[in-house]
């Protein structure tokens, strides 16, 4: 662990900046939702940014990442272009998926981001398959697979973890445990001692951490990423956090007391990161400049996405099948 005195300031300022960008991107998307520019459901990761920045931010560009419906942070931290992401959320030309996917199918294959997924838990077996392909190719890439606490009750969780363990596949599984599966408290409907114990039952090295402390996340992620890369075996990171917004951008989350949420804001990973850097002696000018730069970036992203044209309807006929039957005379 880094103590405050010898905190690597450059490294943690970079994580701080990435968390700010994720927060700003999602606040911009929520503004877009209010203005009717974001068309479908979005699932903000506000409050969970330290995990995205600390894990996805330490992957190599050629490593592979699979994400969930709550995937904006992972995608941005893996290196995707925020303007292409916002265009996708607005359903416009120049979106990562040309407006064919939207928030729940955001993907940027050019940075190894093989897709968010609209089906909870489905990405676990796909990530395992990407890792199996890497094994066949024989290179040193790894796969990072994010999912929520709720996903640990789905069958593909069992099938994917078992598979990754028996075939010695280089996957880092990251369970972002925000305590909720939609409107349900996951603990109410989940038996046993939790995600890490489930992973450990397959013989997968598992660690449970405070996912809102960027120093802890960064340290654990660095260790596990290196271990997976070297040992060519899966590892499991269980990161505890809290979903500060509703399940979707439109969910007021009235099923939990306001005091609980107020309390959770005291644990905001960005505020904690700021306090840490303050204590390490980073000048407030540095933060002001960073805040301004991030705000300017996302303002530009919003304006560009809003100005972008709709996809040509003919685009809807493409990217389905190559196979064609002979033409009818």
């Amino acid at each position: 662990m880094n103590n405050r005195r010898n905190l690597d300031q450059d490294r943690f300022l970079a994580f701080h900046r990435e968390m700010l960008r994720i927060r700003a991107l999602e606040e911009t998307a929520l503004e877009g939702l209010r203005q009717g520019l974001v068309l479908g459901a979005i699932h903000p990761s506000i409050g969970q940014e330290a995990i995205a920045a600390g894990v996805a931010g330490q992957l190599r560009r050629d490593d592979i990442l699979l994400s969930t419906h709550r995937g904006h942070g992972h995608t941005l931290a893996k290196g995707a272009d925020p303007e292409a992401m916002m265009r996708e959320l607005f359903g416009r030309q120049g979106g990562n998926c040309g407006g064919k996917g939207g928030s729940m199918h955001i993907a940027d294959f050019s940075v190894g981001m093989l897709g968010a997924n609209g089906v909870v838990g489905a990405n676990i077996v796909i990530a395992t398959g990407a890792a199996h392909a890497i094994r066949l190719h024989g290179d040193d890439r790894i796969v990072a697979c994010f999912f929520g606490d709720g996903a640990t009750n789905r069958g593909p969780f069992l099938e994917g973890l078992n598979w990754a363990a028996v075939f010695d596949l280089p996957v880092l599984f990251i369970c972002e445990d925000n305590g909720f599966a939609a409107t349900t408290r996951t603990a109410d409907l989940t038996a046993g001692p939790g995600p890490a114990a489930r992973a450990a039952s397959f013989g997968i090295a598992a660690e449970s951490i405070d996912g809102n402390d960027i120093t802890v996340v960064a340290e654990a992620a660095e260790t596990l990423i290196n271990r997976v890369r070297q040992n060519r075996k899966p590892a499991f990171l269980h990161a505890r956090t809290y979903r500060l917004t509703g399940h979707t951008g439109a969910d007021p989350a009235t099923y939990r007391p306001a005091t609980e949420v107020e309390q959770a804001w005291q644990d905001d990973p960005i505020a904690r990161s700021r306090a840490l850097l303050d204590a390490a002696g980073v000048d407030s000018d540095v933060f002001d400049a960073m805040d301004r730069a991030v705000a300017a970036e996302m303002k530009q992203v919003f304006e560009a996405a809003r100005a972008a044209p709709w996809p040509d309807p003919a685009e809807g006929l493409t990217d389905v099948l190559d196979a064609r039957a002979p033409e009818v005379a």
Partner: protein
Amino acid sequence: MAEMTYAAAGAAALAETMDADPTVWALGEDLGRGGVFGQYAGLEARFGAERIVSTPISEAAIMGVGVGAAMTGTRPVVEMRFADFALCATDELINQAAKARFMFGGQTRVPLTVRMPVGMWRSSAAQHSQSLEALYTHIPGLVVMMPATPADNHAMLKAAIQSDDPVVYLEHKNLWPMTGEVPDSAAPYSIGTAGVAREGRDLTIVTWSATLHDVLAAADRAAQSGGADIEVLDLRTLWPWDKARVLESVRRTGRLLIAHEAVVVGGFGAEIAATVAEELHADLKAPVRRIGAPRLPIGYAPTLENEIKLGPDRLDAAIVRMMS
């Protein structure tokens, strides 16, 4: 030319594509021991357990791993053991494999081949006998192929594996021991083309998979009895289907019967019948008819299974009705 079984023709097709392309691999339960029907016999010894992968009983993972690996520079051939078990992997096939290319805006391809043995075979009853091809023809993003002969299993499986589209490849369990000539240097199969299994003037029967052989026998009987000169089309690929060939034939004969082993209700025959009715109404000398299974689970006892099967009597009666 080599005489081969339908099962061996499949194994040969896989071996040839694996020889030619190191990114081709196969995964499924018990493949190392040759697969449940011997359709992978000898392949593990030849290619090793890294490329002929015996998996846990995890259908969702077998399919899902296939999807992820197909998006990561390999060409997986996924074995589902029985088509019925592929239903444990419906999300991975229908929501993931079939959708990935489109929903990610063309950033990826899913060159996945999914082998699913179908059909009634040795009293296998309700959960090991189904022909579910119509389910997959309904799904945008999937190719659906059903070979009926050893030669076609050889050429069509190679085409399926080489295709960049996800292919649902349905082999009929009753055909595994069937022998036939497999040409050494056949022209590659072009996905979406039907075969003319028999030429005729009076009636077109469109069929596929094992039912082809029942239909050919019925056509021979009809020729001998002087009842009809029947053209038999083996559809081979159900999606995209060879509409041009079917329309051309029916335009000539004026009569169309579609015969398949699957349940008639909502079966793929309905799509062909509707298309012909829409396109060729004025050319038809008789109503288009379909023949297949009643909408019932498949029973275990032979007397019950026979109620579901097409059989010579029902085929002959259907032909007589078409010609009357």
